[in-house]
């Protein structure tokens, strides 16, 4: 096991930033700590790095207790959201910093350092930038330098705090893929913090979803996306439509307008709603189109059911939309392709209108 976190709590005054966290981070994997702001994800990362001290609990690195170890003895690489490059040093000096400050007996000689920095610059695709200063680099380049600097000291663990948070969308995309590629090459145990579910789903091997200082769910991106364990995780991983329903003889009924206590709520992703001009199989819910927005090759359609005045958002393909838009948009039918219920007796297979 790479990193073992047991029963870690951290309080800021009365506020519990982390409340009894137990987490195992496997060796060689890229793990995402995902959660909204204030969920404690950054605090947890900083505790792993030793930049914060937990009020309770312990941290083990590869079986060895590291709770009392100082940051500089933990052998972690840390990448900050705002790069934290040393402004007064060149790119070369930044990357060499961790090696040059070593005590003389463990410090590599000049030539070794130079060769290593060159290799790292090559790896982060910044050859020829060695003599530049951080202020002469773009955000994406700065973050790659920060990564090279962290890797120069050959850390056992790589920690990244919202590493792409300060970059614009296109660079963020590129850097994400590049990080994934780099991790596949190096296989260094890595943890990165993000509030962007798409980023977590795309980059990581495993996702840990945090909320209010606790862990909600741990799993592979596919597991957590397909089987969110609770409404919070469901809502956090993507857009959601809420419909309330009632069980009637094992069948879910959507025809009730008022919600009773104990009525289950249906969680439906926008892409799990389809729209048709007719009600061929009798499963359609009559609705009308309020607005639509074309997002590249997807179209986000806002609908309102004719009965019950419930608003729903559907996301359909451009082609389907083009086929649909010639029809009377005030009388169409929406169908629920897939939904999730968080209720005690949540087995259901069908619904009626």
């Amino acid at each position: 096991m790479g990193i073992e976190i047991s029963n870690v709590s951290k309080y800021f005054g009365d506020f519990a930033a982390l409340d009894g966290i137990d987490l195992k981070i496997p060796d060689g994997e890229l793990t995402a700590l995902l959660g909204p702001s204030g969920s404690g994800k950054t605090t947890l990362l900083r505790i792993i790095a030793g930049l914060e001290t937990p009020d309770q609990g312990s941290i083990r690195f590869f079986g060895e207790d590291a709770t009392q170890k100082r940051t500089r003895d933990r052998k972690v690489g840390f990448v900050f959201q705002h790069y934290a490059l040393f402004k007064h040093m060149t790119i070369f000096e930044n990357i060499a910093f961790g090696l040059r400050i070593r005590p003389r007996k463990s410090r590599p000689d000049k030539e070794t350092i130079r060769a290593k920095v060159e290799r790292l610059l090559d790896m982060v695709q910044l050859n020829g930038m060695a003599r530049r200063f951080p202020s002469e680099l773009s955000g994406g380049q700065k973050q790659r330098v920060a990564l090279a600097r962290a890797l120069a000291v050959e850390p056992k663990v790589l920690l990244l705090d919202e590493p792409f948070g300060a970059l614009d969308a296109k660079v963020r995309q590129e850097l994400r893929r590049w990080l994934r590629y780099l991790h596949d090459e190096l296989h260094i145990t890595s943890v990165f913090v993000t509030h962007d579910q798409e980023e977590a789903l795309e980059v990581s091997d495993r996702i840990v979803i945090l909320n209010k200082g606790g862990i909600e769910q741990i799993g592979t991106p596919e597991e957590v996306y397909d089987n969110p364990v609770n409404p919070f995780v469901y809502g956090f991983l993507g857009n959601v439509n809420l419909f309330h329903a009632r069980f009637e003889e094992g069948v879910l009924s959507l025809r009730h307008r008022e919600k009773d206590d104990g009525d289950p709520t249906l969680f439906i992703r926008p892409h799990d709603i389809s729209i048709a001009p007719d009600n061929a199989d009798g499963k359609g819910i009559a609705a009308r189109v309020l607005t639509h927005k074309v997002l590249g090759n997807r179209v986000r359609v806002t609908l309102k059911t004719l009965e019950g005045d419930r608003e729903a958002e559907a996301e359909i393909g451009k082609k389907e939309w083009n086929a649909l838009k010639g029809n009377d948009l005030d009388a169409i039918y929406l169908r629920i392709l897939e939904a999730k219920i968080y209720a005690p007796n949540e087995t259901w297979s069908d619904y009626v209108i």
Partner: protein
Amino acid sequence: MNAPALKNCLEPRWLRPLLIAVALLFLVVFILLPLVTIFSQALDVNLQDYLAAALGYEGATPELPPLFASLGDGASVYRAALDDAEVRAAIRLSLFTVLFCVPLNTFFGVMLAWAITKFDFRGKNLLISLIELPFAISPVIAGLIFILIFGASGWLNMVDLYTFADGRITKLLDADGNTVTLYKWLMAHDLKIVFAVPGIFLATLFVTFPFVARELIPLMQEMGKDDEEAALTLGASGWQLFFKVTLPNIKWGLLYGVILTSARAIGEFGAVAVVSGNVRGETTTMPLYIEILYGEYQFATAFAVASLLTLIALVTLVVKAAIEYVLKKQRTG
């Protein structure tokens, strides 16, 4: 560029030249003219003729105050003044005061700024307010504080000394059988604090304390903790952190604080006047000596020393402006 100049829509057309003119006039009358006077008097440039020429008078020159007319051959007086043993002693004492106070206040200022910006602790806001205290109170009072502590009627004269003899602790007595206070003991050992050089050092230390810390605190707050945390994760020790990461970032601000501290240390009058005792050639700094000379109607010498002090101030100003320029460039770059 062929684009027409943008019309100024924010203020009436006449306001800007008027404001600039008023400010310039004020600057010339109250700052530039006195400054020129000091140097011209010290070097005995004939201000009367100069003014007459500048203002276009011919023949009859305007009457100037007798002060300006009563000067002799300035240049030689100037040289004589700087040869004077007491003048030299005053210059020396002022320089020693700077050499004593600036390193100490730099050291403690950096420590304080570090503590305030890097750590969270109770009473931090109180501490920040306390830093400003020497600026808030009159320098005369700053001087009096030291008289109250170290003077003959001060706290030190209320502290009795004890001695350990025959297995018992007894009060220390002098030859006449009187109790010996800490003050008396210090005097007996020729360790005068007030009305002596140590008092001047202490008073100057007090009034110049805020400059470095005040300059560094906003700078270090702006810098944040990221750089230092990055250095920590890369294995840096506390010293490496300070000298390789923090100091390069704050060095211009630090230098700026040091310059201000030096300027104030060399120019301080009020606090030093209270604790000095004005022993000529021993406890007179440059500003104090100028005042003594002036009081004795030795205008030529007074102006000579004053011009030297002013020159130091002007050099400081130029250095300060240069540092400000660098700091500004650093912030925007």
